[in-house]
């Protein structure tokens, strides 16, 4: 190939590469750049050395990538300035803003440790979220960078959520990829979409395939410029709306409602007398038959440490009424100490001090004796019947523990339930029928 042809080929290729610049730069400097390359190539042709021609073109190509990046960043900066009509404030103003934002952030951190109203909490969080924007803008004077810093922070939060979701999935013993996938989808992907969309809007405000502006007639160029301006204005509106909506939604997503007094109060619940097992439990207290020593003895018999059939029968004969009352109690839907039914008359923290606490010794003894009966039935091979007795104890224990009464009441209910579960575990080892297992 002749040097002249090769030179022309290089110039054509370079001309195409110039089209990758932003239109303004392409229009203002494209022809001059091409002219300069042609001058370089013409000089190289004079030396009649193909190697020098190639080297000249290679050096021209080498400068393109860095130049493209600089020009597109320059376009982005210009656009964002126009978009927000930014005026560069003085360093003093920005410093004052920074300190105000820092102070608000610190106040937020301090206040968030105590109970604050939702409105104040939300206002403080919004102000705190402005901190990275104000800080970055004060340093860089580039608002778009400030938003991207905020978005980066949100991505970090998103990644943190993913890690936490992974840990939770692991802890649950069944790694659930759906949880992780949802975390990614809900937190990180929208942020990445924001980066991508804003990049597209700022860096490619017109279109990807750029026309050869140098070859356009003045009328065509004018029409193209008008079209570009309309498209650019539309993109700016869309971008502004997108960024505003996006950041707003993310801030709402980050908003963790502050704890209010209402959250600390138990919901008011009044159990009707006919549904309340309180009457039966009161009767159990009056029918208490076991001494302290006997109670310990029953516990030993239930645990299976020692077994005395005769002694067990004796204890059970004495407590038939007690156990029947417990079965009646278990049939009632709920338990509530009537003295604690109207929570509005008590401050939660003062409830234990102000209200008389119901005695539950009789219930405890009736439960132990019912479990003793279960143990006896189990030893005589009636495992299913034994399981049904345990079920009675479990039901009573659960209803007491979830009665929203005083702490001691909850603990007694939990203890009754625990004793029942221990017996049930031993019964299960002996083998239960399918029907009882389902119950």
């Amino acid at each position, binding site marked *: 190939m002749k040097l002249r042809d090769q030179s022309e080929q290089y110039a054509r290729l370079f001309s195409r590469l110039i089209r990758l610049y932003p239109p303004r*730069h392409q229009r203002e400097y494209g022809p001059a*750049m091409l*002219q300069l390359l042609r001058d*370089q190539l*013409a000089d190289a042709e004079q030396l009649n050395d193909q190697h020098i021609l190639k080297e000249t073109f290679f050096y021209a*190509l080498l400068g393109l990538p860095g130049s493209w990046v600089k020009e597109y960043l320059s376009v982005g900066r210009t656009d964002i300035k126009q978009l927000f009509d930014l005026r560069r404030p003085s360093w003093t103003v920005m410093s004052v803003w920074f300190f105000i934002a820092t102070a608000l952030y610190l106040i937020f951190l301090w206040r968030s440790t105590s109970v604050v109203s939702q409105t104040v909490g939300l206002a403080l969080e919004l102000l705190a979220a402005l901190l990275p924007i104000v800080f970055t803008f004060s340093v860089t004077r580039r608002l778009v960078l400030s938003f991207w810093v905020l978005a980066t922070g949100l991505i970090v939060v998103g990644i943190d959520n993913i890690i936490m979701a992974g840990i939770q999935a692991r802890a649950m013993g069944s790694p659930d990829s759906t949880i992780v996938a949802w975390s990614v989808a809900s937190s990180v992907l929208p942020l990445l979409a924001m980066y991508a969309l804003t990049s597209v809007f700022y860096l490619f405000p017109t279109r990807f395939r750029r026309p050869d502006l140098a070859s356009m007639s003045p009328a065509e160029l004018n029409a193209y410029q008008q079209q570009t301006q309309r498209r650019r204005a539309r993109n700016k509106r869309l971008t502004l709306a997108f960024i505003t909506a996006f950041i707003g939604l993310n801030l709402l997503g980050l908003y963790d409602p502050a704890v209010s007094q209402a959250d600390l109060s138990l919901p008011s619940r009044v159990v009707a007398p006919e549904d309340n097992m309180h009457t039966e439990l009161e009767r159990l207290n009056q029918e208490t038959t076991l001494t302290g020593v006997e109670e310990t003895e029953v516990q030993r018999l239930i645990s299976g440490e020692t077994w005395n059939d005769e002694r067990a029968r004796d204890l059970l004969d004495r407590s038939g009424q007690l156990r029947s009352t417990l079965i009646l109690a278990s049939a009632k839907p709920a338990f509530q100490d009537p003295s604690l039914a109207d929570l509005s008359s008590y401050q939660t923290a003062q409830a234990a001090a102000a209200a008389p606490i119901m005695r539950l010794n009789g219930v405890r003894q009736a439960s132990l004796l019912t479990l003793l009966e279960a143990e006896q039935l189990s030893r005589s091979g009636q495992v299913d019947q034994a399981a049904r007795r345990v079920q009675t104890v479990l039901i009573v224990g659960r209803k007491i523990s979830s009665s929203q009464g005083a702490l001691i009441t909850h603990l007694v209910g939990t203890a009754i339930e625990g004793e029942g579960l221990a017996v049930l575990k031993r019964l299960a080892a002996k083998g239960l029928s399918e029907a009882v297992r389902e119950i």
Partner: protein
Amino acid sequence: MNNSSLGTAALYILLTLSESERHGYSIMKEVERMSSGEVRLGPATLYTTLKRLLAEGLIVEIGERTDPTMIRRQERRRYYALSAQGKRVVRQELGRMEQLVKQFKAKLA
């Protein structure tokens, strides 16, 4: 402006224009000559830098004309010249460099 942000290419361009007004190719050749081939500016780097220097007011465009010394002498070329602010910046930068050289020499001595 902050001189440290001027950059090698920009400084060489300002130095070449301090002698006389030049067009792009002339600037490029002169920079290569002055730096003994150490600094080679391609069209992309040259015009991106020229654009920045124009925006910062360090150089000015003084119109188009032909250059009879060029092979393609019939073509019109854009000429650039150093502005008053550009001259001040060049002087400052050279002063700063002289100071640096003095300091280094004193250290080495």
